[in-house]
């Protein structure tokens, strides 16, 4: 069963002139960490809002853990952090968590609040104690917290109540580097140990690389590509770029003589050759085969892209690649 499924989800603004989400059909496997990447304005946050029920879709459906949701309906099994944390600024962090725990109907709300505060590393002084005060209270209002502390509180609010699926929109924004590492490790641990499915969007691709098992690439409101971490790793394997005088004939020759290689014709006519297992293809054998077939090789270079560069390329890539 997929944790989240959407079918042709669409949303536009400004009387239809801005199509924020266009026909997005998404399947997030249960137990995965699904990273959504894309440029600013690609529709990532809007998509998460539609899935969580914070916004009404114009078309399409959303299912969470097998249950189809009505438009603007939410599910208690979802933990959500989209855009800014959902907090009352004039309460302290503990009170905000207590409020959320009461809405969820948790049997021991105070214990749940203490546990989740410890999980996200929000210290007791910043969190406050939640005690009711008759006169204007002193203590750490959420309004007085730093951006990073507020973000930790937002993650805590998403985690309270042991959700089965987390929807996190830029969860690591504003957090110090140590905190980023801690929270990232926490999310990975929650996924591995408790099987929580996590859908996370982030501009910091390096953070996603360390967490994600799957990726979805969004561009102009559409989900243009989904791939697994293994697929991304394959895409980041060392490859050779060749320029030949007869690309189509070269593809046919290589397919016949060296069937183990993967050959793609790039938009500019160059060939990209990868070997199984990610190792560098043997240049000498390659050149020999092509020359024997009477195909001239004018350029031959090796490249090893990193994940971030490959993701950027996928985000920017506007054309369908031939030969895939």
């Amino acid at each position, binding site marked *: 069963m997929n944790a989240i499924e959407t079918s042709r989800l669409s949303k536009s603004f400004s009387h239809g002139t801005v199509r924020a989400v266009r026909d997005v059909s998404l399947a997030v496997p249960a137990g995965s960490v699904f990273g959504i990447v894309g440029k600013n304005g690609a529709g990532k946050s809007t998509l998460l809002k539609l899935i969580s029920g914070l916004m009404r879709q114009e078309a399409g459906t959303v299912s969470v853990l097998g249950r189809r949701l009505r438009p603007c309906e939410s599910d208690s099994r979802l933990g959500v952090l989209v855009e800014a944390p*959902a907090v009352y600024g004039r309460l302290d962090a503990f009170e905000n968590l207590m409020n959320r725990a009461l809405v969820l109907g948790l049997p021991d709300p105070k214990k749940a609040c203490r546990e989740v505060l410890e999980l996200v590393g929000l210290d007791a002084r910043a969190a406050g104690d939640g005690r*009711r005060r008759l006169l204007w209270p002193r203590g750490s209002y959420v309004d007085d917290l730093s951006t990073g502390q507020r973000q930790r509180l937002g993650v805590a609010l998403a985690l309270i109540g042991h959700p089965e699926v987390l929807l996190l929109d830029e969860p690591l924004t504003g957090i110090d580097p140590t905190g980023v590492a801690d929270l990232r490790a926490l999310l990975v641990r929650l996924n591995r140990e408790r099987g929580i499915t996590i859908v996370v969007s982030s501009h910091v691709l390096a953070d996603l690389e360390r967490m994600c098992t799957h990726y979805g690439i969004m561009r102009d409101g559409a989900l243009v590509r989904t791939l697994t971490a293994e697929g991304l790793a394959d895409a980041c394997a060392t490859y050779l770029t060749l320029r030949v005088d007869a690309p189509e004939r070269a593809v046919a020759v290589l397919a016949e003589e060296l069937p183990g290689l993967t050959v793609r014709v790039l938009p500019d006519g160059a060939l990209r050759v990868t070997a199984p297992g990610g190792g560098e293809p043997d240049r000498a054998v390659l050149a020999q085969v092509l020359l024997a077939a009477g195909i001239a090789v004018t350029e031959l270079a090796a490249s090893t892209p990193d994940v971030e560069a490959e993701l950027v390329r996928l985000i920017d890539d506007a054309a369908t690649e031939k030969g895939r």
Partner: protein
Amino acid sequence: MSAMTALANQLRSAFFLASRDAYVKGAFVLPALLAVSTILLVLLFPDANMHVMFESGLLGIVRTGALFGTCLAMAGIVTHDVSSGGLRAAVLAERGRGGYVASRVILALVLAVLLGVWSVLLGMAPLLGPRVVFEGMPAGELALRVAAHVLVGWTYAVFGMLLLWLARSPRGFASAFFAAVILGAGVLNALLLVPVAVLIPLSQELAFGAIQLIVPILPSSLLGDAFVADARLVVLPIAYVIVFWALSRRVMARAPL
């Protein structure tokens, strides 16, 4: 999760937030400030014979507490909900949107009753003075008048919440206080009289007919000198609250958050 369980959870959250809300605290302070002057007189002049009229002494405090105070408290709570991200915390649950609206409507009634009782107690405090005498209407009528103020305060508060949810952009003290003032001053009654204003230049007969129809169903008709102890006392506020509740549910069911 059943609808009743979801509502119970939302109510627990609503009462938790209300117990910490500055506007709610202010709503309880306001009638106390009004009562202070009378209580001070009793304390400063314990030997004086004091005759206090129910209408001016007690009902004035009840009007401040149960009517204006309820509007202030609920306008403040909804302003906090909408202007912060707190509203999301309520709706991100099963039956969250409907439960949120229902919990605020019920909270408004509870606060109206509590503020009404608090105001009555404050208003009766001067009776602690040995020579203080209350005069005016019979106790039974007084109780009904207090109940009328409580129910009308509830009606105004629910109407105010609907307006704030429609606006969805109230910010801070100015919004909440302005909302409370116009609600307490009876903006709902003014809106209900708009058809009369439209008809007057067209036909005075029709306008007079409209007045005959509309005035008896104005919430303000349950207060003041025109008070009549009949079924309208309960039926009218409940009817208005049901309509505003239904409209609020519809507004919140579609609102992007």
